């Protein structure tokens, strides 16, 4: 009873709440880091150094008037934010935040579940999230959201191909689709996959930026061309859901990259006895630290790089990333067969 219902439910509650709190603080972090990059201070008024800003934002968004345009498709207009938020949250079911801890004399795994198609689950759930964006653009019955949503979905579909092809070479290395097994494979092969698969790492990082609609690939939200992107007609809490989904997806991408390439919860040099003291740091702390590095990197890139043009984005996806991904997969396969 306790093992089948209580513990999984507790884990789900904790992960969901931690994610939502994390997401709101990602917004604050983003504003702060970009402000520092532009020698400003960022939010300073609410709480010391603005640390209560997310609370103020949340209250503001919740009490704002919620407007549905008259000519909108009511059902789809309501469903679209939900459709983008739900996939962004259920992905966390398979992400391993750590190995095992003993709590109150019970071994508890620090992941909600470990299914043997974990990585495919992440990819397929992410691909369902596209509907939120397309339907938001369609249901708004307004030209800018429609254009933005067509852009966004074309971009997501294109980069999904490149990212999925690249992930296959990691699966070839690990010999499993389970997220936990992929981390264990990195322990057994004595090397993080970022060193064994540097090309795949870069490809997944670029693809991850594009799939989360982040700068320099944030064309669906290009203000000067599209007034605000696919959520132009949304206000209040429904707009907030799109916003939260985008940041939740960023955290997902960071976690997946950490799991696949940076050894997940493993400390650096996991097999070297001289570095055994690194195991005194709990596994979830390593995981959070590594994920945080990627989140910071995403913000840093946004503050640094200008936006791509749309044809450049498509050329990069189809004519550069996909050929490299296929070549990388072929080379990985040959090396893997020859070495084993």
């Amino acid at each position, binding site marked *: 009873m306790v093992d089948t219902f209580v513990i999984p439910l507790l884990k789900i509650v904790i992960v969901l709440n931690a994610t939502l709190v994390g997401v709101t603080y990602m917004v604050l972090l983003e504003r702060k880091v970009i402000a520092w990059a532009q020698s400003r201070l960022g939010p300073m008024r609410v709480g010391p150094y603005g640390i209560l800003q997310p609370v103020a934002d949340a209250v503001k968004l919740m009490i704002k008037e919620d407007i549905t345009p008259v000519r909108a498709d009511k059902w789809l207009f309501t469903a679209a934010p939900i459709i983008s938020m739900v996939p962004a949250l259920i992905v966390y079911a398979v992400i391993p935040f750590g190995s095992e801890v003993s709590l109150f004399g019970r071994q508890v795994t620090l992941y909600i579940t470990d299914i043997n198609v974990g990585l*495919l689950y992440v990819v*397929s759930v992410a*691909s*369902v999230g596209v509907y939120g964006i397309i339907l938001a653009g369609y249901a708004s019955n307004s030209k800018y959201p429609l254009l933005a949503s067509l852009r966004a979905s074309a971009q997501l579909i294109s980069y999904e191909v490149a990212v999925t092809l690249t992930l296959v070479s990691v699966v070839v290395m690990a010999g499993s689709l389970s997220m936990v097994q992929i981390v264990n494979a990195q322990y057994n092969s004595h090397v993080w996959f970022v060193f064994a698969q540097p090309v795949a790492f870069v490809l997944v990082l670029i693809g991850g930026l594009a799939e989360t609609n982040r700068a320099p690939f944030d064309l669906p939200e290009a203000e000067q061309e599209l007034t605000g992107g696919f959520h132009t007609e949304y206000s209040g809490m429904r707009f907030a859901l799109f916003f939260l989904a985008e940041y939740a997806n960023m955290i997902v991408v960071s976690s997946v990259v950490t799991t696949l390439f940076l050894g997940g919860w493993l400390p650096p040099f996991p097999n070297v006895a001289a570095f055994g003291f690194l195991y005194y740091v709990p596994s979830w702390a390593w995981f959070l630290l590594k994920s945080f590095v990627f989140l910071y990197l995403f913000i840093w890139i946004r503050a640094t790089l200008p936006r791509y043009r749309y044809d450049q984005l498509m050329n990069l996806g189809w004519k550069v990333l996909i050929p490299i991904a296929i070549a990388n997969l072929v080379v990985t396969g040959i090396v893997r067969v020859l070495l084993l």
Partner: protein
Amino acid sequence: MGEAIAFYIIAGFILIFAVLVVTAKEAVHSVVFLVIDFLFVAALYASLGAEFLAIIQILVYAGGIVVLYLFVVMLVNLKRPPEAYADPHRRTTLGFALSAAMLLEIGVIASYGYVKPAPALAAVAAPVTGNTEEVGWLLYTSYLIPFEIASMLLLVAMIGAIVLAKREL
């Protein structure tokens, strides 16, 4: 018992959404119901223990192909004047004939399977365990030639689509 209950609930939802697909007034709503229908089919696979098939169902059908349907439905003008539609009753006979043929086919397959159960796959027992591994093993050993032919067909279809869409290359 639990499996049977799950099956009937999921099958019921599949039927409901399949009917909604053909009765929805707006084409975009049809496509959305189709996605939900595919998700329930994936749930059916998962309840049968075929988790690899379930995930592939979501990835390929719900996440891939239907997105392209949505593109077409959104970009093509479907608001034709009513006289452009053919009389809906014109194809009734053909529809009933096709449905009868389909039902007969399903009945034959089902009764055949009932009389003569499928040979146990243990004869070609894969040296691997796990759903994904076994699918891969069977595809690349017993079903290698059909698999390769299917991939050739898909390649030809892909090149054909590009040639048709791009008049000058």
